[in-house]
């Protein structure tokens, strides 16, 4: 549409539409400005400035910036490992969650009991305890997992228990009619599960699993207690302690965790859009 076109030539619908667009633009500009203000306040809190406003003495956190600049590359070295840990653990968790969900839906008593027992035991104990227990307990059985293996096992087993319920909900959400239809054309139960139910359930469980993955990215930090896995928090704690600069080192770690989370939240959005590409929209 040409810029010279006067309002009178536009239809009522166009005017309403343009008004809505203007409101949306104003809203998103407002949001972006607010983000900048919030970030500014956060930076100010770590600036080390001390001000007197009307007799009120305001202090901010003082940091050794030279130390931060010097040690950031070393802490950054843990970013890859943190992501790898989370990816390996979520893969294990998905497998366990699927097996757990099948167990929970099974008509075979031992399978149902095993799945229920697993969920109850794992959800009933803290993740930190499980990591230490697997790390120290398995060597007693003659199996000595490295810190990495122990960490992935513990995280995978823990998240698997929580995700079992997600998988179960996904499987149960596939209408019974789908199963009936598959049965009618002569599929056996395992075929129905693989070809009819799981593909449809998968689409529903992707968003909550993405959510679990983002939570897990930060729970990988707990693996640092074994001492053998040089992920972000381990590195930050070691350089922080040895130099009496824990606050600085932890702040660097926090920034990396936050940035990773923001990036993976964007990836999650893409994946969700991808699995929903066949959906009808208004």
């Amino acid at each position, binding site marked *: 549409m040409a810029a010279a076109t006067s309002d009178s030539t536009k239809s009522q619908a166009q005017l309403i539409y343009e008004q809505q667009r203007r409101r949306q633009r104003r809203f998103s500009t407002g949001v972006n400005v607010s983000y900048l203000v919030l970030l500014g306040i956060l930076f100010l809190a770590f600036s080390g400035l001390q001000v007197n406003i009307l007799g009120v003495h305001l202090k901010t956190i003082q940091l050794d910036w030279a130390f931060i600049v010097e040690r950031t590359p070393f802490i950054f070295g843990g970013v890859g490992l943190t992501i790898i840990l989370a990816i390996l653990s979520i893969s294990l968790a998905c497998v366990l969650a699927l097996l757990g969900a099948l167990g929970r839906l099974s008509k075979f008593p031992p399978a149902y009991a095993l799945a229920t027992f697993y969920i109850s035991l794992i959800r009933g104990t803290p993740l930190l305890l499980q990591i230490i227990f697997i790390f120290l307990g398995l060597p007693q059985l003659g199996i000595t997992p490295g810190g990495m293996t122990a960490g992935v096992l513990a995280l995978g087993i823990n998240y698997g228990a929580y995700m079992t319920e997600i998988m179960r909900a996904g499987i149960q959400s596939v209408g019974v009619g789908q199963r009936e239809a598959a049965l009618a054309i002569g599929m056996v139960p395992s075929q129905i599960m693989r070809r009819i139910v799981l593909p449809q359930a998968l689409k529903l469980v992707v968003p909550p699993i993405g959510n679990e993955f983002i939570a897990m990215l930060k729970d990988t930090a707990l693996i640092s207690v074994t001492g053998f896995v040089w992920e972000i928090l381990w590195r930050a704690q070691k350089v922080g*302690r040895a130099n009496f600069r824990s606050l600085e080192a932890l702040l660097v770690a926090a920034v990396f965790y936050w940035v990773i989370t923001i990036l993976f939240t964007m990836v999650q959005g893409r994946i969700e859009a991808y699995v929903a590409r066949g959906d009808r929209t208004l």
Partner: protein
Amino acid sequence: MKRLMRLFFVVVLTAVLAACTSSEPADLLAKIEEDGVIRVSTDPNYAPQSFLDESGEFVGFDVDVAKEIGKRLGVEVEFVTPDWDLITAGNWGNQWDMSVGSMTVTVARQEILHFAEPAYYYTPAQFAASDASGIESLDQINGQPVCVGLSTTYETWLNGNKAELGFPESSFYAEAPTGVSVVPLQTDNECAQAIQAGRTEFSVFLTSGTVVQAAIDEGIAIHRVGSPVYSENLAVAFDKKSSLDGTSLVARVSEIIAEMHADGTLSTLSNQWFGADLTSDPTK
């Protein structure tokens, strides 16, 4: 699904069998020489004993001593980083062979660990207090909360378990203060950092003189309180519960330590990292 289940069981069974059937030589020293590598635990929480430099390399006095031992054994040194708690608890499950980590020889630890004889250096246990506290003498520590690192000799001593340490009487220069409440934090350095951060649960801590010096060097507002309260013999440690026989390794490393004392290697390293020679036994 059934095929998947069967595959799963096969994988689990193979893993269990593989873990059970592996056979190793029975002597730890022989195995180390065969592998050409000795795995040394280090706790890089402490400068100048063991810490990570800008590029993430291990550096420090303990690190150099470990490398020198490796060199004299004719093997490579590989460092692993379990938490201090795990090192002092023994039962290492063959995940590493030796600790060169400024570990004090105590009676309780000797029950689960072998120590190379002689010690490779000696440190004084030193009280320190925040400058703001006004605490200047050992008497003023009575009745105070005192911070220590978890599983350290300082914790044991303050809790009145002197017998567990089993040091000769000549190692002690002072009696433990009375009526103190012990605040154990993850490492000794947390004590200094808590004071620096302005926490008020305690204003006194007990640690090695080298840690106090490192904290003062970093500009933390603390000072030494009184003279050292006891002396600690720090030695190379080995796991007693290892499935491999460590006797010959302990004997060989003991010889190496004695050589390093005799030829001045340890004195040189001590001067380099601590600015003082801490390698002679102060009780002798």
